[in-house]
């Protein structure tokens, strides 16, 4: 298994980089490495931030005098982590989603552009298990995939206001908007669940590396769960 490259990003941080691309296998290695580093972290670790094919490992300025030792540890640790098989995915999370047209979505638009009936689009979305590649853009916004290749659509050229809970897709990925915000993805439906709550013990419902499935619910069920 190829050991990834380690490059400094700034005075107290490094990037760990795997071959570029968005794919589940590489991303699983990113999360396995992150988990290993977290378990064996030395003093001064501030945060570990995963993305599709790279990982940021950042240390506090309080350990600025130890950067060479920490870099040596990181080289060793990343090699150790890459020798272990990727972790088994965590338990599946079911997200209830209302695809009912009572809530404005882009299903008709997608059907016309993908040349697929709406029902077929929904079947393909619901039958898949998605991996959370990373979180970013907004607190609690999870980038998930892979989406079925027949459903790949570029993002909208003009973003518009997207309501909180919108389950949307673009470029072969699925995401859920944790709050009302401008967005350029195509809306499939809405979840009544709160994706991010700074006051909660676990602030984000979805974490990098999790497995996710969508469970269709009716408009009435959606309103009851809000």
């Amino acid at each position, binding site marked *: 298994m190829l050991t990834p490259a380690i*490059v*400094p*990003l*700034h*005075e107290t*941080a490094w*990037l760990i*980089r795997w071959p*570029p*691309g*968005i794919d589940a296998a590489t991303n699983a290695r990113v999360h396995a490495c*992150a988990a290993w580093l977290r378990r064996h972290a030395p003093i001064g670790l*501030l*945060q*570990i*931030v*995963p*993305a*599709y*094919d*790279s*990982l*940021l490992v*950042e240390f506090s*300025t309080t350990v*600025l*005098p130890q*950067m060479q030792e920490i870099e040596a540890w990181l080289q060793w640790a990343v090699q150790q982590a890459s020798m272990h098989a990727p972790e088994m995915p965590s338990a599946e999370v079911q997200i209830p989603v209302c695809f009912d047209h009572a809530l404005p979505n882009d299903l008709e638009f997608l059907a016309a552009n993908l040349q697929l009936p709406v029902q077929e689009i929904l079947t393909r979305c619901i039958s898949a298990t998605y991996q959370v590649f*990373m*979180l*970013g*853009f*907004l*607190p*609690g*916004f999870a*980038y998930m995939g892979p989406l079925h290749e027949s459903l790949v659509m570029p993002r909208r050229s003009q973003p518009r206001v997207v309501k909180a809970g919108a389950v949307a897709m673009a470029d072969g990925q699925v995401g859920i908007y944790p*709050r009302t915000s401008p967005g350029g993805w195509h809306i499939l439906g809405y979840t009544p669940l709160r994706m*991010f709550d*700074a*006051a909660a013990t676990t*602030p*984000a419902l979805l*974490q*990098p590396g999790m497995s996710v499935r969508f469970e269709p619910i009716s408009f009435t069920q959606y309103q009851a769960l809000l």
Partner: protein
Amino acid sequence: MSLRILKPGVLDTVQDVGRFGYSHLGLGPAGAVDEWAMATANTLVGNAPHLPVIEMNGPSASMLFLQATCVAVAGACAAMLVGGLPMPTNRAVLVPAGTPLRIMGGWQGQRLYLAVAGGLEVPPVLGSASQHVQAGIGQALQAGEELAYKALPCSASLQPRMLPYFFAPLPASQVLPAITGPEWNSLTTLEQAQLLQANWVVQPQSNRMAVQLAASVPARPSRSMVSAPVSRGTVQYLPNGQLLVLAAEHQTIGGYPRVLQLARHGWSALAKAMPGQALRWQLISLPAARQALAEQQKLLVRMQSAVAYALSAHGLPTYFYQHGH
């Protein structure tokens, strides 16, 4: 409650060093944009450098100290009235209960930080007092809002009184020190040279998320990049030829090439730069950047030692070991 906001500026917020450990959830650290100015204001009143302060964006602000305290304001150059008396910034001022403070308009530079002895006591969210309005944590300070701090445990005079010590602020600089970024080599040699030779002008859209810089540099074709982690100080090269230097409330992941990384000891110079100001980049090595940061840390320790002596000579406590909340 101890401090009442009479008239806030635009987007004045409580900040500390920020909240770490949640970037993997899309929640970046936030915190004070000008970390050095915050550390200076805190050190002047005997605080650990990262205790909660008020970050002010102007154009002016006024507040009332309901309880006696020691206050310091640092950052931009601004005129200030404390209890109706003109007082300089970058000094510790003892104020009796009931003293108003007014920051006048017409600043030179951006962002002012106000610290009180012992720090503002603000209930932390996810371990930090930093308000991160973009992320839905906290909101801008409102007129009439009150913040808590511990009253200074000594009898103050009837008038505000400036303490005699001061520290020269960091010299103003038009030069931004930077190390090369992960995508520096995706630029051609010509593009690299153009970037380093250009005068980059701060754009008015700059805010707590990022500082936008524009120069007469040709736009480049958009080269897609798989989104990757970024940090404060990361310099992104936009397809329209502009640069985006990520600031306190940056998004945690970015899809634009990371061509440079602003050295940490240069964050303060950028934080102070006003719209219209021209700046230039200067490439330095990573060891040089670490060395300069270490020097800045040593400077802070020297300031703390001087303040420790001075405050104890005045019978006042220090809070160098206090953590937030």
